[in-house]
């Protein structure tokens, strides 16, 4: 058992080294120094408290999305529509804000309602993908992708249409809310401890849901063998729908945080691609909730650190995505190689 664990860890570390190696080669190919690039990325994410706070700002939505995806993956569903669920969370949050902004409600209550609204929005959008899957026979990957495009279109329509800034509408988004409607941030930093707490609560909730409850056990049964679970009397399609709703609510929370604690308004790229990135994190941690926090933090650090690359080295910041992608690819391929050639002895 221990040997198996260590062997597993050796494969993961090997994949990590290999992916840094490949990215180094890519950097050399464009005539840049790999060491300099990695150092700049590290300093860009851990070099100061302010920068580390930025990493946490990216970590929060990424962790929430990953937590949600662990639930749909457990149910055997490839919820690629998570990206749109983040967007709808942000839209619903903005809608609630706009609705209560001029009311006499205390700001704290408005913020709470807005975040709950965001979770509801994400859950409803996920339910749409679920209904298409369960009652329409539309594979969740294709239904989800289509809904992602619709969600983006809806955002842009709102920003340029009904919610446009007085005067001229622009890609910079809707009118920002007054400061008192923001989730409280730490002094001089952009991170909200409330958002961080929400994200950690999300992953803890999912961990216990999947590991420690009867619901989680049955959900995993549905994911492992849909037919057998059905024959055992588990209401399979209901479980599929529940998992969509839970994932959508967590993704919606991510979108809500983007509005309530980061941008304070709706912008066209409100999801920042965290939905798709969450899919990568979930794959990398092999769908195990315990690893979600460190890996999501690592990915967030890569994203924030890479912002330095165009400034300091005239390289594109998409290097972070390349590194993340190559890493996940090597882990997937390594897993395949281990299964095929490693034998069953130490699996």
């Amino acid at each position, binding site marked *: 058992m221990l040997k198996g664990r260590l062997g597993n860890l050796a494969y993961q570390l090997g994949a990590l080294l290999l992916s840094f190696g490949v990215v180094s080669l890519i950097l050399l190919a464009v005539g840049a120094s790999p060491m300099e690039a990695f150092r700049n990325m590290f300093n860009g994410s851990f070099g100061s408290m302010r920068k580390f706070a930025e990493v946490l700002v990216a970590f929060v939505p990424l962790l929430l999305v990953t937590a949600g995806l662990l639930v749909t993956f457990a149910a055997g569903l490839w919820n690629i529509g998570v990206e749109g669920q983040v967007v709808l969370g942000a839209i619903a949050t903005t809608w609630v804000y706009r609705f209560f902004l001029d009311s006499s409600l205390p700001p704290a209550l408005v913020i709470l309602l807005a975040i709950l609204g965001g979770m509801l929005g994400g859950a409803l959008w996920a339910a749409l993908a679920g209904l298409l899957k369960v009652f329409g026979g*539309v594979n969740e990957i294709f239904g989800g992708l*289509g809904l992602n495009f*619709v969600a983006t279109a809806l955002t*842009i329509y709102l920003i*340029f249409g009904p919610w446009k800034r007085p005067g001229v509408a622009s890609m910079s988004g809707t009118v920002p809310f007054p400061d008192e409607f923001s989730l409280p941030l730490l002094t001089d930093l952009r991170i909200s401890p409330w958002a961080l707490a929400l994200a950690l609560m999300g992953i803890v909730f999912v961990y216990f849901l999947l590991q420690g409850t009867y619901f989680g056990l049955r959900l995993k049964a549905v994911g492992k063998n849909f037919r057998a679970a059905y024959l055992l009397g588990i209401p399979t399609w209901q479980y599929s729908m529940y998992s969509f709703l839970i994932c959508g609510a967590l993704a919606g929370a991510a979108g809500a945080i983007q509005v309530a604690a980061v941008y304070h308004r709706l912008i066209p790229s409100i999801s920042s691609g965290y939905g798709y990135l969450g899919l990568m994190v979930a794959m990398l941690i092999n769908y195990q909730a315990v690893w979600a926090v460190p890996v999501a933090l690592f990915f967030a650090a890569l994203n924030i650190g890479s912002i330095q690359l165009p400034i300091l080295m005239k*390289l594109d910041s998409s290097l972070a995505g390349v590194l993340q992608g190559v890493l996940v690819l090597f882990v997937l391929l390594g*897993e395949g190689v281990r299964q095929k050639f490693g034998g069953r002895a130490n699996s």
Partner: protein
Amino acid sequence: MTQETILIGLAGVLASASPLIFAVIGETLSERAGVINLSMNGTILLAAMGSFAVAYNTNNILLGFLTGMLIGAVVALIVAFAGITLKQSQVAVGFVLALTCRDLSYFLGNPYMGVSGPRLQAVPIPVLSDLPVVGRLFFQHDVITYISFAAIFLAWAWIFRTRPGLMLQGIGEKPAAAYIRGANVNLMRYIYTVIGGALIGLAGPAFSLATRAGWMGTISGLDGFGWIALSITIFGGWNPLRGAFGTYLFALLQWLGLVLQPVLTQVPSQVLQVAPFPLMILTLLFVNIGNAEWVERALAAMPDSARRVFAKLLRAMRTSPPAALGVPFERD
């Protein structure tokens, strides 16, 4: 609008659809063989960037197109290796490649942003291009658009009218039966995935060296086309003719979005550009709903006459994926 502007617009629709035609046919071949290549969105971007860079540096457009095909083939080879040899999830590997190749194209393409490079020129076909209407529509395009027309019919004929095509259908539907009849299932899957990948890769230069010449990084507007091609492949029911119909319909809707812009001033242009997507979801719903269990139950509960009409309607729209799509083949 005069008849001439409409004709020019429609001819533009046919040309602008050519990259998607290649992508849809490539994916159709791959999926017919039982391998789903989800990397398309990234592959197209990387092929678009790579082929532009090569054509720019060598000033050789043909070399550029070949580079695009090579990139598509290599990415498809990774999908095939992971899915067929290592028996890993094709969806997972394809998705990772979709994101990785996209980011790689932005990273490597940085120096080529906004550079003006070579572009395929229109080659009117003598005599035919002088025909009224038809000539303007079909015979005043660049070479890659003509090839896209031919590819539709060649792929259709290959799948449905030849012996190897019959075998192709077999390895995607009933690999065990095809194996018994002498097909080397896994080798054939490798070959079709790589050829399909090369066609998907061809979509890249069809953008960056023809219909949307140049490389503009994230603002190229190419991000998303791969996902669209994936949806159209399903819409097309894994049939090149139906897939081509879906592609032209999509291109037509996008063009209409642009044309109707001045009329529908209330609606922002970005929304009209994505109008095809809700329609795409609806069509996916229509072609798939016949596969849902509750529909069968509902049909059974209907009075005879109504059932006959509905069942016929559903059957006409319905498409089912190749039965062994995404499932590794094991000899035993």
